[in-house]
Every structure is written in structure tokens, then in C-alpha cells.
């Protein structure tokens, strides 16, 4: 047992905070936000609120989700900032999210808010931005190996792609999972499995993270990486010989969202962060990487993204995706796990 009960410690902290206004609170935030952006997110937030210090715990979507679920009885996180909505819905189902309506949350596009708010409840989570699937195609290696640029999901199952396609493992990667959900929405569930069976023939590896396929395509380890637009656009700006392909059947997307974890000891700081996470400044920050954000009118076009991206986005059924997550993933594992990276 610790020497002091937790409540006493919290009391002491509150007291200290009352006397010294600038005392900092440490907030443990679980996230799946791309790691090259974490520092930027914390800095922008700290410009407005230097009194809250963020301790990031970052991993791929599936890992963070699984970790939160595993810690259910002894939560280590105060907050989630930047995790797939499909995952947050699972957490909500488990009663792990604490409802809170951030200041002026109603300004946001209603698609980006927990639908419970329409029924007069405080939202359990609020959306930040949409991250969109995309194919990263290495033009140099494509030409060298005679692998043409794909233009549709269907193309990837053609024999010339055999051994040249890399995709994220949906168990660990949110990007991988949104692809699976998208294919099932395009061709219904059985059609989705049929497609993946054929695709599986051509897959070289299933990677741990959603950005890895694009990174591997960028470094010439693969020709085609099924990944997401953000990573592809950024690698292209860094000089990678990539072309971003948005398959003509339509691309899946998931929403990054934020929420407070039930039972946090740092409720006040968590609310401060959530308040900030829905502001116009925060959404401008999200827009630096993502073309579609929750705050209406903020989004500016991003380098290397197609202008018509919203037309290509297939509206996902988040609830269906969340409710069937465990079943789909275990079926996926049963079928294809042999080609997964040891994650």
C-alpha cells in the first residue's frame, strides 16, 4: 500500500494548485496519432494551457484499444486524444468513457459528435478529423519491376501484383481495420472476405502499423502499400517517389476522436484538454495533416491530397464496425495471420 491514500494525495494536489496557480498537472494521454505529430500537438495545446503537461502513450490503434480494455479495472490513462471512433465506441460499450460536453462543442459538424448528444446526453466522445485510406505506389520500383499503377481496389488482386502489396494488419492497425470495413461496405460482408482471399494471394506482408506499408513503399521495399493519405502525402513531401492512389470504388475512413476515461484522477485537466481539442485552433492543427476536420469551415486543401477527396470517401457505419470488431478480427486472424509481421 502507498503511504498515503490516493484521495489524500489528490487533496494535497488540489490544495497546492489553489495556492500556486501555475502548478502543472500531468495528464496521461493514450493516442494513435502519428508519432511525428505528437510533439506538435502537445506544444500547441501548451501554448494555450501551460499548466497541463501531457504524457503520451502512443501505439497503433488496435494496440492502444486492446491496452485500454485490458486496463479496464485499473485504468492508467486519463484521456484518449486521437483514437479511432470505432475503438471509442467499443470503450463506450464497456462503460469506460466519462461523458462530458466540451465548451461550444455544438459548433462542430454533428457527424463528428457522439450521437447520444442528440438525445440530450453529454457526448462520450468528440471527433477531431477523418483519416482516409489510400494506396501508396512507388513509381521507380513500379517501373523497374513492371508493376503498373493501380487505379482500383480490384486491380490489386491481379497476378502482376503478386508479392508486391503490403497492407496493415487490422488487429493492430486502425487503418487496416477501416479498409476491411470499407470493403465489406462496398461488397457486403461475404464479398469483402472473397476480395480479401484474392488480395491475400498478392500480399507480401501484413504490417503492425498503418503507416508502415507506405513507409515500406517509400523506401522501395514494396511497390504498393495500402496505407492512408496523411502518411503518403507527408512522405511525398520528404522526397519519396510515391504516387497516392485513391481507388475508384471509393475509400474507407475512420474518425479520430477524443474522450475522457472514467475514473481519472485528473478530471479538471482532462476537461481542459477536451475543451481545447474542439476549438478552432485545434482543428486548424488537425488540418495540417488531415483534409477533413470536425470544425466547419476550417479545412484548407493539403499538399499532395486530391481536391475531390470528400467525394471518394465512403460513409462508414461506425456502429456496425465497432459492434463486429472482435468477430471480424478473429475471423481475419484465422484466415490470414500467417503473413503477419510479428508484432
Amino acid at each position, binding site marked *: 500500500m502507498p503511504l498515503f491514500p490516493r484521495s489524500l494525495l489528490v487533496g494535497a494536489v488540489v490544495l497546492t494548485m489553489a495556492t500556486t496557480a501555475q502548478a502543472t498537472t500531468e495528464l496521461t494521454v493514450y493516442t494513435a496519432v502519428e508519432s*511525428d505529430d505528437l510533439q506538435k500537438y502537445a506544444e500547441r495545446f501548451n501554448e494555450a494551457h501551460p499548466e497541463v503537461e501531457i504524457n503520451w*502513450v502512443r501505439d497503433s490503434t488496435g*494496440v492502444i484499444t486492446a491496452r485500454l480494455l485490458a486496463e479496464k*479495472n485499473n485504468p492508467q490513462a486519463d484521456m484518449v486524444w486521437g483514437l479511432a471512433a470505432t475503438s471509442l465506441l467499443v470503450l463506450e460499450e464497456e462503460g469506460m468513457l466519462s461523458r462530458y460536453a466540451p465548451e461550444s462543442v455544438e459548433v462542430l459538424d454533428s457527424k463528428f459528435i457522439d450521437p447520444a448528444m442528440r438525445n440530450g446526453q453529454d457526448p462520450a466522445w468528440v471527433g477531431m478529423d477523418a483519416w482516409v485510406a489510400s494506396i501508396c505506389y512507388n513509381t521507380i*520500383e513500379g517501373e523497374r519491376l513492371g508493376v503498373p499503377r493501380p487505379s482500383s481496389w480490384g486491380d490489386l488482386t491481379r497476378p502482376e501484383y503478386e508479392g508486391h502489396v503490403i497492407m496493415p494488419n487490422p488487429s493492430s492497425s486502425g487503418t487496416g481495420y477501416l479498409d476491411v470495413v470499407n470493403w465489406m461496405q462496398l461488397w457486403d460482408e461475404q464479398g469483402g472476405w472473397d476480395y480479401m482471399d484474392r488480395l491475400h494471394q498478392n500480399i507480401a506482408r501484413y504490417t503492425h502499423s498503418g503507416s508502415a506499408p507506405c513507409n515500406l513503399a517509400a*523506401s522501395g521495399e514494396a511497390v504498393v502499400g495500402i496505407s492512408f493519405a496523411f502518411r503518403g502525402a507527408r512522405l511525398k513531401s520528404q522526397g519519396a517517389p510515391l504516387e497516392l492512389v485513391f481507388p475508384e470504388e471509393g475509400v474507407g475512413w475512420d474518425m479520430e476522436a477524443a474522450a475522457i476515461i472514467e475514473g481519472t484522477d485528473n478530471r479538471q485537466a482532462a476537461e481542459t484538454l477536451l475543451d481545447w481539442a474542439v476549438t478552432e485552433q485545434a482543428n486548424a492543427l488537425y488540418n495540417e495533416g488531415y483534409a477533413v476536420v470536425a470544425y466547419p469551415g476550417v479545412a484548407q486543401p493539403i499538399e499532395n491530397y486530391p481536391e475531390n477527396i470528400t467525394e471518394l470517401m465512403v460513409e462508414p457505419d461506425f456502429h456496425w464496425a465497432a459492434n463486429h470488431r472482435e468477430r471480424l478480427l478473429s475471423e481475419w486472424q*484465422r484466415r490470414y495471420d500467417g503473413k503477419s509481421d510479428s508484432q
Partner: protein
Amino acid sequence: MIAGASSWPARLSGESLIRLLALLLALGLLVVGLLFPLAAMLIKSVQDRAGDFIGLANFARYVQTPALAGSIVNSLTVALTSTVIVVSLAFLCAYGITRTCMPGKRLFRMLATLPILAPSLLPAISLVYLFGNQGWFREALMGESIYGPIGIVMGMCFWIFPHALMLLVTALANSDARLYEAAEALGTPKWRSFLTITLPGARYGLISCAFVVFTMAITDFGVPKIIGGQFSVLATDVYRQVVGQQNFQMGAVVSVILLAPALVSFAVDRWIQRRQVAQLSARAVPWQPSPSPLRDWTFAALCYGVAAIILTVIGTAIYASLVQFWPYDLTLTLQHYAFEALAGGGWTAWFNSLTLAFSVATIGTLVIFFNAWLIEKSDGYRALRQGLHFLAMLPMAVPGMVLGLAYIFFFNQPDNPLNWIYGTLIILVLNTLVHFYTVCHLTSVTALKQLDPEFEAVGASLKVPFWTTFRRVTLPVSLPAVLDISIYLFVNTMTTVSAVVFLYTSDTRLASVAVMHLDEAGYFASAAAMAVLIFFTSLAVKLAHATISYLLLTRAQHWRQAS
């Protein structure tokens, strides 16, 4: 005089009580740090998610899932292949060092220890640059992929080689020149005396070495994690089940399976150690090789070939960490060392690793050596001391992944009074200390066995409390061993990934774990940079340590002479 005599037994029993308490503390450390967590893990493997007992159902499910059960064969295949390659190669090199007059032995031995200073993730990263789809030597694989068994075996060979070499040099160093002289006098051909004298003389060392290599290969996590691709092995399965899917029950099942080969090889090793007694009689005359240019240069070529491979692998990692955008933009840059912009903790993680390594080296050395001394040099409590010795030998048989996972099960229970250390640096110190306990314990025991038991007897008869004898006599005299232990602990703590990967938190991120995370997220150059950073840190500390050892030992020598 009478007063003195009457206080003598009282004093002794007081001291004896303290000794008993110290022994019990040592027992407590190993029970809490090893036995309880392992027990918690065993229990977990026969429970369902809700924590109800379900017998062997988890194991049945394991066997029925081909993706999981296949890993057993995979693990055995790569471990056996690595063992054959490493042991043969290390035997040849050790032979070159001990039985030939090849030039540059010292230099070769120095170069051959370099892989120990790097995390096992480093060779794996280098291999991608050497043999990956864009690698310089990709044609050498003749169309085979480096991601898989080939890469795993190559990576393992790289980082296990130094361990095997050290063991075999020791095994071959003891030789009796009289046997060779007799053979020569009888006109026995060279190959025959090799088969009938050299090999039998080194057989225990060879078998023991083979088992150590096999255990390291089957339990290693870093190499298959980076370069295993779709080829899964037991160690990566534990990680995937636990971190990827948070399926702790299945993680526990795989751990139990992973524990089996390690335990077998542990038992065999113990059995061999017991048989290997007095190989070398006191009258043996050490054998000195005489020059033979052809043989000497052949072995020199072989050894320097190995050294060149080692330097190439390390050099590749350094190069990889400096290239702007491999393979399309080869300008050099230091930007990949700017970890702060990336997740994984960056320089903070490096600093955490340093703190941890120094803590483990300091605390571990003192605790393990003191415990070994208690076990070795105490009278009475025979059963307790034997039990402690067995417990001290056990960590060698427990793979890092298993120990790390076992710690989660044991320490993360809300009703565990030690729950508060979960998520702190303390649990990492405890875990790492226990993980590397055995080798340190053995080093201590070997050093202590060389000390005359008279020291304790004289101390006792002079009525000096035992801790004073320990502090004033035993510790300084055993300084070389103590220093060896501390650097062993430091370097291993710096480079280990397997156990700590389950135990770090946002405040206690470690550099070795950061390498893995950077690689997972696709920042290959930064992953290489972090691995290189660990390598140079270990190297710098090792050099500093060598200097300090030299100075301290000269002083210790002086102290010996002065007294």
C-alpha cells in the same frame, strides 16, 4: 574474561539472527521477483478472460490454432540452425585463439565482443539494408526474402556469436600438453589427436555452449521482431498476443510453451556442470601452440573474415542512421538523431535507459554479490542456502518475454501490496536484476570459491561482525569479479528489449523499446540511429569501466601488498 565469555554466545546469536534475516531477505527477493510472478503466469494460463479456472482449454485452443502452433516448429528450426552455425563458427575461432599462433588475437577478441554492446534489434535493422529488396547484397540470397527464417538466423548468429566464443575459448584454454606430447611421441596424426584429445577435452564446454546458444536463440525477441516478417516464432507470439491483442491468457500459454525448451536446456546444463569436475589435474602442463604458418594464417583469415562481417553489420547500421532518405537520397544528415519529433521517447528514453542501467548495475552488483556471499560463506541454514542457490540459477531458464509478462500478472493485480511499483522505474530495476541474476551469481560464486574460508573464521574469532569482514575483506579481494558483474549488468540492461517491453510506461520509456517502436512505425533510419546510440553508449561505458577497473585493481593490488 567471564563477562566476555558470557556475551560471546549472545553476540553470536545476534549476528546469526542478522545473517538469517539477510538470507530470508535474499529469499524474499527471489520469491517475489521470480517465483510468485511465474506462479501467477501459470495460473493465468489455465484461466479464461473472466478469471475462472478452465483447465487446459487454452492449451487445447493453442494447439488447434495453426498460426500459433506452427510457431513451435518455426522456433525450433531457427534455433537449431543458429546453434549449429554459431557453435561451429565459434569453435573454429576459439580454436584459432587458443590453439594456434595466429596474429592479432587480442584485436580479434575485442572486435568479436562488439555485438554484445548492441541490442539484438541492430543486426536485424542492418540486414534489411544489406539484403532487403533495396539491399546491396540482395542477389546473394538468390531470390529468397531476408524477412523470415534467413534473416532471423543471420541476426541471431551475429549477436549470439560473442557469447559462444567466450564459452568455447574457456573450454579450449584448459589443455594438458602432456597428452599431446605423448600422442606426438607415438606418431599419432594431428587430426587423430584432435579427435581423441582436443574434442573430448572440450566436450562439456561444447555441449554447454550449444545449450546456451540454443536457449538464447529460441528466446530472443529483438531479431525476429524486426526481420521475422510473416515468419512467427514463440517469442514474437507472446508479444503479439499480449500487446497486439491483449489476450493475456494466450500470452501465458505461449510463455509456458516457451519456458519448456529453456528449462530442458537448463536441466541438461546443470547435469553437465555436475559431471565436469576436475578435468584438469593439478599436474597438467598448459599446452603452448608452436608456430605453423599455414595453419596460423588460415585461422587468421577465418577469424578476420568473421570480424569483417561484424564490422560490416555495425557499420551498416551507422550508415543507415545517417542517410537522408534511403535508397533514393543518399546525402548524409544527422536529422534522424532528432528523436524528439517522434514518438518513443527519444532522448528521454535514452536517458531513462542510462538511469536504469546504472541503477541495475549498482544495486544488482551489490545485492547479487552479497547474496552469493551469504549462500557461499555462511554456516548453518543449509537447506535455506541450497534453496537460494537453486533459485539463483533459475532466472537463466526464464526467457525475458516470459518474465516480463509474469510481472504484469503478478504486480498489476490491484490487491497486490506491491501494486504501487507497477509502472515505475522500480519494477524495471527489479525485473532486469532478476532477469540477469544467474550469470552474476555464478561469477560471484566462482570468485568466492577461490577465497579461503579462513577469512570468515578469522573474522569470527576476532569477533568482527560478518558484515565488516564482508566489507573490509571479501568485497575488495573479489573486486575483479564485482566489476565484471557491474559491466555485465549495465550492458545487458542497456540492450535488452524482451522483458521490459511489457513493463515500461510513458514515464519510463527505454531506448531499446524505442528502437522497436520507431521500426514498427516505419522510421527505419531513426530506429537505426537509436540502436547505434545504444551501441556507442555501451561502448563508451565499457571503455570507461575498463579504465576505472584498471585503476581500482592497481589500488586493490596495493592494498593487498600493504596488508
